[in-house]
């Protein structure tokens, strides 16, 4: 595995998006992973429609009662991948633009631009997460976001994390270490793409420590493969 890796440098990541006041983080995480996988499969970077997922995806998690995708009221990335598998694919962002509100589904199958061929979950092992990132493209991950409300920059490495503030984001890379003056050492970190616009964090990105499953970042990691039509 390379010491540092960043899919942004390789053209696999679209610009930072903004979910607005809508609990649709899960859809941005899912489209981000599929945008990367589609880029790897076809060489084309397409910005995909989150609004299609917000409006049309009602897939439920078979493992947890009530964990159904529900637009601005929340959802899950794996449910979204399942929906994309079942529906056939996702339209372009510009063909089905984001509104930040729940709306009526107007999915047009003839305008599908990217499809899922398969998706899987990655084990808690951080080397496996890094290997899957490098091999398969950006990964959909869940994270406890309690420190993200006040985050401005640097590598976040809290001693403890909260509960019930879970968020869907996109893992796009990692770094070998950024010097943390307070700890007098370099800290390896994950690079996370968020969906709160560029005026949050480090131009829309979050860096979090790559040790000990900080804030649950290793707990729910999914990789997706794009179908080539």
């Amino acid at each position, binding site marked *: 595995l390379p010491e540092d890796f960043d899919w942004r440098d390789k053209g696999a990541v679209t610009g930072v998006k903004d979910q607005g006041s809508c609990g649709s983080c899960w859809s941005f995480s899912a489209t981000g992973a599929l945008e990367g996988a589609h880029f790897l499969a076809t060489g084309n970077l397409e910005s995909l429609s989150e609004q299609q997922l917000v409006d049309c995806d009602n897939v439920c998690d078979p493992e947890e009662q009530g964990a159904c995708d529900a637009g601005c009221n929340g959802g899950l990335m794996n449910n979204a991948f399942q929906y994309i598998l079942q529906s056939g694919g996702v339209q372009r962002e510009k063909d089905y633009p984001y509104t930040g509100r729940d709306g009526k589904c107007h999915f047009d199958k003839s305008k599908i631009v990217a499809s899922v061929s398969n998706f899987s979950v990655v084990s808690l092992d951080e080397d496996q997460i890094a290997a899957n990132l490098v091999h398969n493209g950006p990964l959909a991950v*869940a994270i406890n976001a309690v420190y993200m*409300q006040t985050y401005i920059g640097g590598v976040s490495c809290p001693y403890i994390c909260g509960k019930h*503030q*879970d968020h869907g984001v996109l893992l796009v890379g990692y770094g070998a270490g950024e010097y943390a003056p307070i700890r007098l050492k370099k800290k390896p970190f994950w690079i996370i793409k968020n969906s*709160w616009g560029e005026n949050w964090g480090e131009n829309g990105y979050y*860096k979090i420590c790559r040790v000990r499953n900080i804030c649950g970042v290793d707990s*729910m990691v999914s990789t997706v493969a794009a179908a080539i039509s």
Partner: protein
Amino acid sequence: DDLLIRQVVDDDHSLNAEHHFTKFKTTFGKTYATEEEHNYRFAVFKSNLRRAKKHAKLDPSAVHGVTKFSDLTPREFRRQFLGLKRRLRLPADAHKAPILPTNN
């Protein structure tokens, strides 16, 4: 905090909350419909300044401070900007990715 230094100003003053709130409103284009709402949001903002200070202590390698979410309570923040519908754990029934080689 250094115990040898005694705090002689109140917390709001030491946080310079009013100055930060004015700057926050300008930076993020925030306006509030009524004075009551404004005062409530200022109270939330002050609470978030204290939280940011606490986060900076608990997360010293990152920078914490005023963000565009500084006038939201943690509950409002969760409801409006998060949205993951499940506890953080590996889904047991999902297909597992094959183990990849990580050496060389």
